[in-house]
C-alpha cells in the first residue's frame, strides 16, 4: 500500500476514534511551521542553499531592493526608494535611509555593493541565472547605487524582487558564508534567535520593522520552524497541534485533511509548469521525435483535461503555453492549442509512417500517476512508452547525457513572474535546449534584452507561436501547492509558492 494512503487511513482511524481537536497555541503567540518533506533547507544563505524552503526563510529574515506585490504583481519600493534606468545597462537606485540590520549595522549602499558584487562573481552560487546578469555594482553616494548589467536586461526589476536578498557587508565579511548560515542577520520582519541547521530555527518579531516597507510587520511574535522530512509525521503533528502550518502536502492528503476538526487545507495554483519535452533536435538519436507529425500526434493523444480533473485536481489548469500565463510575456493568444483527438493523432502517426506505432523511453520525475496516465493515452494511439521514473538527480543525469527522447518534468521558474525564467532557459540554444531552433533563440535574445515591454511581449509571442506550432514542448498543466494549517490561522496562499509567514495572524 502506498505510504501516503496508509497515513491517510491511519489518520482517518485516529479521527474516527475521537481525538481531540487541534488547538492553536495562541497563548505563547508562536507560529510553528514544518517543512522539509519537499527538501530540507540545508543552508539559510539561499544564494548557496538554493532550496524552495530557503526562499521562504529568506522572505522572513531578509529584504530585497524591490518587492513584488504577490496579489497585484506591482513592483513596490522596499530597501530601494526609487529606481531608474540611467541607460540601457545601468540601473540606479536611491536607497531608503534609517534601516538597520538585526545586529544594529546600518543599511546603506555598501551592503548592496558588497552583496551583489560578491554573489555575481562567486562560482559557488548555485542559481547563477539569478545573478549572472550583473556586471558590477558601484556606490554613487551613501544611499545611491548603480547596478551595471552585462547586456540589456529588462528582467532586472523582477529578478531583484525575487530571490536576491541584501546582506550586511560588515557582518558577512567578518563571519563568512558559514557564519551567515549559522546566524543569519538581515533587515526582515523576523530576527533569528537560534539556528540548528537542518533541524530547527527560532525567530522573533523584528520590532524595528517600522520603516514603511511593503512587507508588513510580523503579526505573530515568535516563529519556530522545524525540518520534518517525513510528510506523514507533518500530518500527524498538524492533527495533534504540534505544528500550525505546512506547505508540503500532496493533493490526496490535503483533501483528506480538510474535514479534520481544527485543521484546514488549501490548494493553490502556482507558476509551476508540468510539461512533456521532446528531443526534437535528435540529440538522443530517436528519429520519431524529430518528426513534427509525431510530436503533434503525441500532443493530440494526451487527455490533459482528464489528468487535471482526475489526478491533479484543485487549482491546476490545462496550459497551452510553454510558460505560465501569469508570467510577463507569456502571451496565451500566440500559442497553438492541441485538443484531445485520438483519431487525429492516429492519422498524424500514419502520415509519418508510424501507423503501427513505435517504442520510446519516457523519462519522468513527476508523480507516477500522471506518468502512468500519459503512457495509457500514448498506448491508445499505438505508442509504446517505457516509463523510466527516476529521482530528480538521476533523471537530470539521463537527460543531459542525451538518453531521454521524451521527458516528463516540471519547472517552477524560481517563482519569477517573467516568461524569460522558463522559455529562455529551455530555448536559448544551450544544453537544456532540445529544439535548437535558431530563430526561436534569436527572438528570445531580443525579448530578453529589450527595454521596451511591448517589444519583449511581441518577441516572446513569436517564440511561443513557433514553439507550440512545432510542438517542441508540450505544456500539460500548471502545478498546485497544497497547504495544511490550523483553522485558527488566517492563512493566504500565493501563486509564487511563497507563504508570507509574517502576514499571518491568529483569528
Amino acid at each position, binding site marked *: 500500500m502506498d505510504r501516503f494512503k496508509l497515513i491517510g487511513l491511519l489518520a482517518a482511524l485516529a479521527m474516527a476514534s475521537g481525538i481531540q481537536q487541534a488547538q492553536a497555541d495562541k497563548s505563547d503567540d508562536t507560529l510553528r511551521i514544518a517543512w522539509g518533506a519537499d527538501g530540507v533547507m540545508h543552508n539559510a544563505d539561499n544564494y548557496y542553499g538554493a532550496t524552495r524552503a530557503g526562499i521562504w526563510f529568506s522572505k522572513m529574515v531578509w529584504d530585497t531592493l524591490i518587492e513584488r506585490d504577490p496579489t497585484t504583481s506591482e513592483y513596490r519600493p522596499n530597501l530601494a526608494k526609487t529606481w531608474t534606468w540611467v541607460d540601457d545597462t545601468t540601473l540606479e537606485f536611491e536607497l531608503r535611509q534609517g534601516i538597520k540590520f538585526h545586529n544594529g549595522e546600518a543599511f546603506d549602499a555598501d551592503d548592496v555593493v558588497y552583496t551583489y558584487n560578491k554573489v555575481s562573481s562567486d562560482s559557488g552560487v*548555485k542559481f547563477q541565472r539569478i545573478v549572472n546578469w550583473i556586471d558590477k555594482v558601484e556606490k554613487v553616494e551613501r544611499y545611491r547605487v548603480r547596478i551595471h548589467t552585462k547586456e540589456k536586461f529588462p528582467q532586472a526589476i523582477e529578478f531583484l524582487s525575487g530571490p536576491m536578498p541584501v546582506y550586511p557587508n560588515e557582518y558577512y565579511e567578518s563571519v563568512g558564508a558559514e557564519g551567515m548560515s549559522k546566524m543569519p542577520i538581515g533587515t526582515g520582519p523576523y530576527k533569528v534567535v537560534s539556528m540548528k541547521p537542518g533541524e530547527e530555527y527560532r525567530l522573533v518579531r523584528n520590532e524595528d520593522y517600522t520603516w514603511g516597507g511593503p512587507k508588513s510587520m510580523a503579526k505573530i511574535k515568535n516563529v519556530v520552524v522545524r525540518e520534518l522530512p517525513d510528510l506523514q509525521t507533518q500530518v500527524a503533528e498538524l492533527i495533534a497541534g504540534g505544528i500550525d502550518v505546512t506547505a508540503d502536502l500532496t493533493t490526496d492528503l490535503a483533501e483528506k485533511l480538510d474535514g479534520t476538526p481544527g485543521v484546514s487545507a488549501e490548494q493553490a495554483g502556482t507558476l509551476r509548469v508540468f510539461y512533456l519535452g521532446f528531443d526534437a533536435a535528435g540529440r538522443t538519436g530517436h528519429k520519431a521525435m524529430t518528426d513534427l507529425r509525431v510530436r503533434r500526434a503525441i500532443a493530440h493523444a494526451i487527455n490533459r483535461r482528464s489528468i487535471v480533473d482526475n489526478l491533479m485536481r484543485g487549482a491546476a489548469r490545462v496550459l497551452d503555453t510553454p510558460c505560465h500565463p501569469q508570467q510577463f510575456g507569456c502571451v496565451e493568444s500566440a500559442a497553438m492549442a492541441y485538443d484531445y483527438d485520438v483519431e487525429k493523432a492516429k492519422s498524424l502517426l500514419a502520415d509519418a509512417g508510424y501507423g503501427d506505432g513505435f517504442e520510446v523511453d519516457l523519462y519522468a520525475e513527476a508523480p507516477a500517476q500522471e506518468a502512468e496516465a500519459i503512457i495509457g493515452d500514448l498506448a491508445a494511439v499505438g505508442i509504446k512508452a517505457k516509463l523510466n521514473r527516476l529521482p530528480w538527480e538521476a533523471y537530470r543525469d539521463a537527460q543531459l547525457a542525451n538518453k531521454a527522447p521524451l521527458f516528463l518534468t516540471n519547472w517552477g521558474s524560481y517563482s519569477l513572474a517573467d516568461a524569460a525564467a522558463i522559455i529562455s532557459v529551455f530555448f536559448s540554444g544551450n544544453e537544456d535546449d532540445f529544439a535548437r531552433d535558431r530563430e526561436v533563440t534569436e527572438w528570445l535574445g531580443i525579448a530578453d534584452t529589450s527595454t521596451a515591454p511591448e517589444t519583449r511581449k511581441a518577441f516572446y509571442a513569436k517564440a511561443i507561436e513557433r514553439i507550440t506550432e512545432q510542438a517542441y514542448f508540450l505544456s500539460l498543466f500548471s502545478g498546485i501547492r497544497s497547504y495544511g494549517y490550523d483553522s485558527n490561522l488566517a492563512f493566504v496562499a500565493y501563486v509564487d509558492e511563497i507563504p508570507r509567514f509574517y502576514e499571518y495572524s491568529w483569528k
Partner: protein
Amino acid sequence: MLTFTIKRLFSALLTLLLISIFTFSLAHLAGDPAIAIAGREASAEDIARIRAHYGFDRPLVQQYLAWCGQALVGDFGRSYHYQQAVSEMLATRLPITLILGISALGFALAISLPLGIVAAIRPNSLIDRISLGLAVVGQAMPTFWFALVMIVVFGLTLRWLPISGNASWQNFVMPTIALGYFATPALMRLTRAGMIDALESDFVRTARAKGLSQTSILFKHALRNVMIPVVSVSAVQCGAMLSGSIVVEQIFALQGIGWLGYDATVRSDLPVVQAITLVIAAFYVLLTLLADLLNAVLDPRIRIG
C-alpha cells in the same frame, strides 16, 4: 598476543580504506554529483559551473587522493550543502544516533533475553507461543508501518508521547521501540534455541546430578553458553541499528547520522557520505572486536585457542 593485535588493527585499517574507496567510487558512478548539488531548478550551465567549482571534472583518483590527504589529518572537509565542517556536523548528530541505537539494543535485549529463556524452559507453553507470535510479528512488520501505528496510538489518540523531535527523553521512546522491536525476534529465537540446546547438554545433566539449584544451572551454566552467539549477534545488530535507523530517524524527525547519511547520499554531499560511511564502518570494526573480547571472557576456549 601483540602480533595478533597488530594483525587485527592492520586488517581493520585496510577494511576502512577499502570501504572509503568503494564509497567514493560508488558515489561518483551513481551519477554526476554536480546535478544534485546544483539543486532542483538549476540549468545545464549551472550544473557545468558547479562541476568545475567543486573539481568534479578532475580525474577520480586525483579527487580521492585529495580527500584522503585531508581525512588523514582529521579534516573530513565541508558539506557541499550545509557549508559546515563535516566533523562539526557529526559531533552534533552522532550522539542522537548513538542514544537511539544503544537504547534500541537495550530494549531488544530486555525483551528477548527473558522471553527466550522462559520459552526455552517451558517449550510449547503459552508463553512460548506468545514469544513466537511476537517474533513473527516483529520480523514481518515493516518498521515504518509500526512507527506510524505508534504515532497514531500514542501520539495522536492517547497523546502520551511527543510525535517528533529530540527535545526530551520522551521523544526517544517510540523510536527506540520501533527500532528495537525489529531486532528482537533474532535475539529471542537465538536465546531460546541456545537455551534448549544447553539444557539438554551433558554438563547441565551433570550439574543437575550434582544437585545444583535450577537458578544456578540456568544462570551460571546454561546462560553463559547461550550468551556467546547472543553477544556476537548483538554486536552486529547494534551496528545495523546505527546505520539502519534511517527510516526511524526520518519518521520521528530525529536529526541523527542515519537520516543525514541518506539525505547526503541522495544529494551527493560526498564529504558527508564519506565521513558517515567511515564512522559507521569504524563502529562495526570496533563492535566486532569488542564482541570477540567479550566472548573470550565468557568462553575460556576462545581465550586459549
